[in-house]
């Protein structure tokens, strides 16, 4: 299998506060890795290290065979989809312009090209094509979230980083989005790193689950491995929530 993301002994800190301690992680093509852990455990920092928003204080991050420390970060980021909690769509752009944001960074697109791409992506996340001309604030939370995912996917990225993308939507919508993400991944074979604080979501989505605690990867494995052999009370508590 092809190693897509490789994090080797990386530490990170915000000022004086160390948040990650020599974390190592290898992710292969087509995996759906879910990271779970209490807030402040460093999961978001770990994710942001993959697209270079956070620079590790030590250690090395390699994505698609390129070392982040020495490659063109802007170009690399365009190959990595990024979706966050609450979607954070650009409020001054229509849904169409939001979806076409990343391809539009590379080349100038005509409105027809954008419309065409937007419709294709909207269909993928199961939204009606009429939404293309709307502004984000005219959409419901769930719709915004889907557009956020469409924006992340439109880059035709091989890697998708998702930071609690379904955190702000209601239970029913979340179930739907989870199903869609799974079928999307099956169709496209994209590598996904997904953060959540919901253990059910982690079990449902993850082909591999990483449990983080205090800036370290505490335990990792499939849902089954974790339930059968939890490392300690902390993991057991997390699983039985």
């Amino acid at each position, binding site marked *: 299998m092809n190693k897509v993301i490789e994090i080797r002994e990386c530490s990170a800190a915000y000022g004086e506060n160390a948040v990650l301690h020599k974390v190592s992680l290898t992710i292969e093509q087509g995996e759906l890795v879910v990271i779970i852990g209490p807030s402040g455990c460093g999961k978001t920092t770990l994710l942001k290290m993959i697209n270079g928003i956070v620079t590790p204080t030590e250690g090395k991050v390699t994505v698609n065979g390129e070392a982040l420390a020495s490659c063109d970060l802007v170009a690399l980021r365009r190959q990595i989809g990024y979706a966050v909690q609450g979607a*954070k769509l650009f409020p*001054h752009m*229509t849904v169409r312009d939001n979806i076409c944001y990343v391809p539009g960074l590379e080349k100038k697109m005509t409105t027809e090209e954008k419309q065409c791409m937007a419709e294709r992506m909207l269909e993928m996340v199961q939204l009606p094509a009429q939404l293309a001309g709307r502004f984000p604030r005219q959409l419901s939370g769930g719709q915004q979230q889907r557009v956020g995912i469409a924006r992340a996917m439109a880059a035709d990225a091989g890697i998708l980083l998702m930071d609690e993308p379904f955190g702000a939507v209601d239970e029913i919508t979340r179930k739907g989005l989870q199903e869609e993400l799974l079928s999307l991944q099956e169709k496209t074979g994209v590598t996904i790193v997904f953060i959540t604080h919901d253990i059910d979501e982690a079990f449902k989505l993850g082909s591999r689950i990483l449990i983080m605690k205090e800036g370290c990867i505490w335990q990792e494995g499939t849902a089954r491995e974790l339930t059968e052999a939890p490392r300690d009370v902390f993991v057991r508590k997390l699983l039985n929530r």
Partner: protein
Amino acid sequence: MQILQIFWDRRELFATCLLEHIRISLTAVLCAGILGILTGILISRHKKAAGVALGVVNVIYTIPSISLLGFLIPLTGIGNRTAIIALTVYGLLPIVRNTYTGLTTVDATILEVAEGLGSDGRQMLFRIRFPLALPVIISGFRNMVVMIIAMGGIASFIGAGGLGVAIYRGITTYNMTLTAAGSILIALLALVSDRLLSLAEKAVNRRYGIE
């Protein structure tokens, strides 16, 4: 009634003064606008420079306009040029401050997403930061325009043209009607400009989906 009469009787004087006033104000607005927005963009990237620059424009703002004009005379002489410089300098505060505030108060997570999606520095500024800051920048611009037009009235004290000439002439010849007429025209000019700018503001907001 008297005022309407005087508008008609001295229509040539008022027409020249009004045009001159518009010319001076417009020049100052363009200078202050360009300079102010550029300064705002520059200082939005350097916290330290921002403190200094905002301090300086604030201090300038507190200098009484009449004395600023006085200070400028030995440097740039009398006339329209000095007036334009003084008005430009005054106009800087609202536009620099609003540009800076607008650019630095954009939602940090939106910026992070834009960066994470692969925007380079220029794209961050022109596609994300600037359009999101635009409503705040425009309101600073409106402030500046009204201020410059109003303050333009004093410019005639150092020999510049504009409606101040009518006001000044009214004062020196005890002709209150003339003074009032000049003042009213300045106020009207400011109001009309503000109205026009508010229409522009609405158009921009529609373009960016804020309403």
